């Protein structure tokens, strides 16, 4: 019964989202404010209905209700409870339901947010959001209904794909979707501005918190996916330039550019048309990502949904939204008033450079991902575009981008002074050079790129720290004399300054982690109990091999003791091969031993007659920095969000203050 009510609630959401989409537009024509105000309760109602619908499906999964097709296909009574819950979105239908749930959640948040968004802009934004929700709910109801019943109900389900029965993958989709779908709000704001024909700093300010939320979650989602691939796929790589990974990287790159261009727009009233275009492109790339994953058009390790009819529907959605929004852009953008000027050497100039390189990188990933498909359909020539291509093209674009980062923070708005900025960044450059050279000398004969990368990472981290220090210290007469005064002032700096510094330091930390992989070592061998394998500074000894039983799998486990080359005990690692009888699938469970931020990574290979096992042992120095740095980046986004400008009702107060103190400039941040 609950399932049917859930299904009904989804249909109700379809109707309500249509109301949400149509009423504000109608109101705009008739000028009826009451009609326009319908958008808010409609958005809340849509969210409530989808939430109920999602709850019903979750209940079916949690209670293993095998009368529901979706539960049969993805659950099993012996499956651990956590994965019964994550199984809700571990399949196509459920993940689409999660997608629209987040879509409606963002709509509801915009409807109730008490910030100073002009009512017309808010209503139009809700209308666009309503239209997106309507189309996706229609997609679910017509092609991907998760509430299908089966009679008679079987006693047991087919279980979830074992690769997905993992904590990392349990939380990866929700994080990623909040990111993807979060950009729908900036998209809706952009379309609303185009419809309205008006765009200004108020718009930029209204959009910024949503961009920050989406970006932070997308960062976490990508990092989580990368960490999952690292430990679950069993060969220790953390980024494969897989189409599905690229699908999440593209909106991230565009979203990062958007995050920076809205700052320029808010502060300098420039880059308006470009910002609107970016907002459209970012969400378009999110939709493209959904299309790539959901349609299985570019099959890859991650694609667990392959169904052409759905693909065609999503393609239609893609054409409707991307084509429609770009047409609207082409028609209306020339009417938007061009914004202010900017000098090349200034903070906005650096941010323009940021946008230039991010956009070029995004275009490269885009073309690289879709080129084989396009070429094959046009000329029937088959080529592969793999990691080497992306490494050759992406990295040369990333390095100059990273080099500008500290300059962007240091340069002043309007008219910056490169010389002064360089002086202030002298410490960062000096430290970077010293670190790079020291590491190079220490690891002489090793890879050349790694010390360069370490230097670059150090430059970014120190540059971010120096930015906080020098701003807290102040200049000229107001220069703080004591350490205590600097500390006090540092704490008093705007949260957005801290957020920026943290996010940029996070990028530096990621770069450090990536660079250090140049020193990663790998060993493979066949070992019997009592024998050892050495990789880098660590030695793994096979203690024994034995069977182990989990809730829904059988495992053959290798128990290893890790020692350093001097023979001191470091820890133990277990790696196994799991067999899931319900799916008849084998999965390798890698064993990880974390030492500081480095890891020893063991992966069990084949069993050899005579009691020996194939063993693969990696030493991954500083590898955790890759994901910890991402977390720091997302944390930077979160700290920026707590800035008083972003807080509910804050802009109004800030404006009053500005009025009270005529002539004072907003602090550069």
């Amino acid at each position, binding site marked *: 019964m609950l399932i049917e009510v859930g299904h009904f609630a989804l249909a109700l959401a379809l109707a309500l989202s249509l109301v949400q989409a149509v009423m504000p537009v109608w109101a705009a024509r008739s000028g009826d404010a009451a009609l326009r105000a319908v958008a808010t309760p409609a958005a809340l109602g849509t969210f409530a209905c989808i939430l109920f619908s999602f709850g019903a499906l979750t209940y079916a999964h949690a209670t293993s209700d095998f009368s529901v097709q979706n539960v049969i296909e993805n659950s099993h009574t012996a499956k651990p409870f956590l994965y019964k819950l994550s199984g809700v979105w571990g399949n196509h239908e459920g993940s689409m339901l999660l997608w629209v749930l987040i879509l409606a959640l963002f709509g509801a948040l915009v409807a109730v947010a008490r910030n100073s968004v002009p009512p017309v802009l808010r209503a139009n934004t809700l209308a666009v959001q309503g239209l997106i929700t309507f189309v996706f709910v229609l997609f679910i109801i017509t092609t991907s209904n998760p509430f299908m019943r089966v009679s008679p109900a079987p006693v047991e389900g087919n279980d979830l794909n074992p690769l997905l029965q993992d904590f990392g993958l349990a939380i990866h989709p929700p994080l990623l979707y909040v990111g993807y779908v979060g950009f729908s709000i900036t998209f809706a704001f952009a379309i609303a501005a185009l419809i309205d024909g008006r765009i200004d700093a108020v718009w930029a300010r209204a959009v910024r918190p949503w961009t920050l939320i989406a970006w932070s979650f997308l960062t976490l989602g990508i990092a989580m996916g990368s960490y999952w691939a690292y430990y679950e796929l069993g*060969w220790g*790589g953390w*980024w*494969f330039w*897989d*189409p599905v990974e690229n699908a999440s990287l593209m909106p991230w790159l565009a979203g990062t550019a958007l995050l920076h261009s809205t700052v320029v727009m808010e502060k300098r009233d420039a880059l308006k048309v470009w910002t609107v275009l970016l907002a459209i492109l970012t969400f378009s790339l999110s939709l493209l990502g959904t299309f790539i994953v959901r349609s299985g058009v570019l099959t*890859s*390790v991650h*694609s667990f949904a392959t169904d052409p009819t759905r693909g065609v529907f999503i393609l239609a959605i893609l054409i409707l939204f991307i084509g429609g929004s770009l047409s609207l852009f082409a028609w209306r953008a020339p009417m938007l008033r061009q914004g202010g000027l900017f000098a090349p050497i200034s903070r906005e100039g650096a941010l323009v450079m940021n*946008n*230039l390189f991010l*956009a*070029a990188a995004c*275009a*490269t990933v885009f*073309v*690289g991902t879709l*080129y084989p498909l396009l*070429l094959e359909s046009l000329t029937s*020539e*088959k*080529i*592969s*575009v*793999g*990691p*080497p*291509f992306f*490494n050759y*093209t*992406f*990295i*040369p*674009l990333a390095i100059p981008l990273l080099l500008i980062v500290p300059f962007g923070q240091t340069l002043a708005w309007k008219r910056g002074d490169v010389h002064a900025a360089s002086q202030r960044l002298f410490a960062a450059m000096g430290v970077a050079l010293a670190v790079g050279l020291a590491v190079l000398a220490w690891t002489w004969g*090793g890879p050349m*790129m*790694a010390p360069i*990368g370490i230097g670059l990472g150090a430059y970014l981290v120190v540059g971010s720290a120096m930015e906080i220090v020098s701003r807290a210290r102040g200049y000229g007469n107001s220069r703080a004399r004591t350490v205590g005064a600097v500390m006090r002032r540092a704490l008093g700096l705007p949260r957005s300054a801290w957020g920026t510094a943290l996010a940029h330091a996070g990028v530096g930390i990621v*770069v450090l982690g990536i*660079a*250090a*992989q*140049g*020193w*990663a*070592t*790998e060993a*493979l*061998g*066949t*070992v019997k109990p009592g*024998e050892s*394998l*050495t990789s*880098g500074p660590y030695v793994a000894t096979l203690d024994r091999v034995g069977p182990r039983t989990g809730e829904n799998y059988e495992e053959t486990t290798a128990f290893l003791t890790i020692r350093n080359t001097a023979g001191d005990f470091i820890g133990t690692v277990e790696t196994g091969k799991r067999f899931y009888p319900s799916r008849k699938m084998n999965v*390798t469970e890698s064993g990880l031993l974390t030492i500081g931020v480095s890891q020893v990574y063991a992966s069990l290979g*084949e069993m*050899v007659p005579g009691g*020996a096992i194939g063993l*693969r042992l990696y030493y991954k120095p500083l590898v955790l920095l890759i994901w910890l740095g991402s977390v720091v980046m997302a944390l930077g986004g979160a700290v920026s969000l707590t800035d008083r400008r972003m807080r509910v009702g804050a802009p109004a107060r800030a404006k009053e203050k500005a009025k009270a103190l005529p002539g004072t400039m907003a602090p550069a941040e």
Partner: protein
Amino acid sequence: MSAARLPRVVVALMLLAGSSGTVLAVQPDEVLPDAKLEARARDISSGLRCLVCQNQSIDDSDAPLARDLRLIVRERLKAGDDDRQVQDYVVGRYGEYVLLRPVLALHTLLLWLTPLMALGLGIFGLWRLSRRRADHETKLSPAEEAEIAALTRRDR
């Protein structure tokens, strides 16, 4: 930025006893005794696509076909081929699809030029923007000049 990952650097290889059946990426029994040659083999393998897999190199893949290709690569290396010749040999047998780094040719020109074109387009756009603004700033129509003249006269 995973260039650091690309050159399979310090590949500490230990070949112990026994030979295994098949599968799971590079097997101990495939490893060449000559460490230098093996490092080259790994490097070449990581640039060759496993044809039956989804976006995996033969170095990462545990498919039997990938193993066959790995063995071919090692055989060619043992026969004294240089890296280029090994690659050409594999491409000759399996086609261009096997290369994870597409060749630079007419049909891939657009692909390889994308980063430069994107940058160029951006720079061109910025240049146009600055030009247009400069135009706006410097050139006033005669009517506007007259208007300003009139206004300033009235102020005085």
